[in-house]
């Protein structure tokens, strides 16, 4: 998502089987959640389990999306960049599921309570901002939008970094009150490495 799919380097077409494989793999967490609720895999509090899982997967796909251009730069693996749009859209898909679960099963569409939640709780606000950062990226992910926006597309899609930082912050603030930030710390380190790689890459115009 961070830069054009039609980058300067032609990476060749993605083989259909790889595309399909990734598409199916991306749906697995969703199916796991549905089946889990249906067949009682998710323990005593299935609502909590699916809310958390969807948030986790939104963040994981976001990091995977960011990983692809690093892989191209570091390992010369170019196919990944061509799969990036799907990864980014999966991040958005799970974010949508996550937000819908919150609106429905946590708040039952009580808009006053939701408004209070956003205003009073920095952890919710961070999640909302992360979501709002992802939204325009998903909306402009089509080839037509890419062409229409030209160079502004790339600038717009830098929002992915804001989304990543805000999502990690969201996770961190949520876990902080439970005195266990080990998981958000792991994501923060991974995001940090991906950002660091980009800073280093700036000195190498070869990309």
């Amino acid at each position, binding site marked *: 998502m961070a830069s054009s799919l039609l980058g300067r380097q032609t990476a060749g077409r993605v083989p259909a089987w790889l595309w399909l494989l990734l598409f199916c793999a991306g749906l697995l967490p969703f199916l796991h959640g549905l089946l889990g609720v*249906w067949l*009682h895999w998710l323990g*005593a*509090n299935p609502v909590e389990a699916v809310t958390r899982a969807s948030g986790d997967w939104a963040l994981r796909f976001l990091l995977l999306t960011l990983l692809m251009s690093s892989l191209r730069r570091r390992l010369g693996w170019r196919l990944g960049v061509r799969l990036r749009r799907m990864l980014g859209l999966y991040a958005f898909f799970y974010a949508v599921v996550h937000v819908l679960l919150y609106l429905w099963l946590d708040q039952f569409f009580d808009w006053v309570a939701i408004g209070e939640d956003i205003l009073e709780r920095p952890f919710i606000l961070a999640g909302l901002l992360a979501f709002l950062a992802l939204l325009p990226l998903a909306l402009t992910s089509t080839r037509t939008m890419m062409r229409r926006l030209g160079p502004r597309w790339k600038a717009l899609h830098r929002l992915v970094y804001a989304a990543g930082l805000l999502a990690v912050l969201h996770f961190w603030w949520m876990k902080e*009150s439970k005195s266990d930030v080990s998981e958000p710390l792991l994501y923060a380190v991974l995001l940090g490495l991906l950002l660091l790689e980009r800073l280093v890459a700036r000195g190498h115009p070869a990309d």
Partner: protein
Amino acid sequence: MFIRKPQQLTENAVTDWALYQRRREFLRGMAGVILLGAGWPGRAAVATSPRPADDPPNSWEDITSYNNFYEFGTGKGDPARNARTLQTSPWDVVVDGECTRPGKYPLEDLLKGMAIEERIYRLRCVEGWSMVIPWQGFELGRLLKRFEPTSRAKYVRFETLLDPKQMPAQQGDVLDWPYVEGLRMDEAMHPLTLLATGLYDKTLPNQNGAPLRLVVPWKYGFKSLKSIARISFVTEEPETTWNRLSPEEYGFYSNVNPEVPHPRWSQARERRIGEFSKRKTLMFNGYADQVASLYAGMDLSLYF
């Protein structure tokens, strides 16, 4: 008050189990609809079945698989997975502080002469979920009196066992070990305050705080500490684990109060485990009639 005889409970638990299952069906029905399209008429009928007005106990499975017991890990499933390593017998409880009969008491001695009774209590976790649990145990006050606390005893301080070999997560530093909780003397002597030794007529499972745990039903669950190894009569309000860690989030009193939000989430409603919609959280977790007088004149938003 939720006090029933064991015989009644057994009968109750059977009918309530069916209700519980039906509520569970609703969620499953939703997943089924999404999975298989809307063509599930049998499930649609389930979705509109009314919720019971009373508080049926949660299932043994839910009560023993969804626990906060950081000594065995921070995930809700960790205690059930990891608590096997806890050695509950022999078990000693150290009693010290402002009392005339301090000592190190084997659990058998403490239980001697204590008639075990059934108490079905609501448990409200500070995280926003709740359960109904059929405990077996005895009133804490009856035990405390045996140690003859002096007039200087104003608070009771409790410690969970400290033994990183038995409680593996104590090797890490998620919390300051051992886990410490405390009650004001009148709270400790209140007839609702229970020491539990069992649930569902079975020995307390390790993940629920075997062999002896506190149950204070009008306070958030973290006040009801598990696997008690030490009871101290003290003159000052004890420093408790969560309160010391984050005083603006976890007060010493931590009475269930829908009007005082946790800084990171509202406490106005709760998800009863096994139910689909949320319930309104009740003042003092529904035990206001019995305990509100303990806090007469106190500003509960200050002493939260």
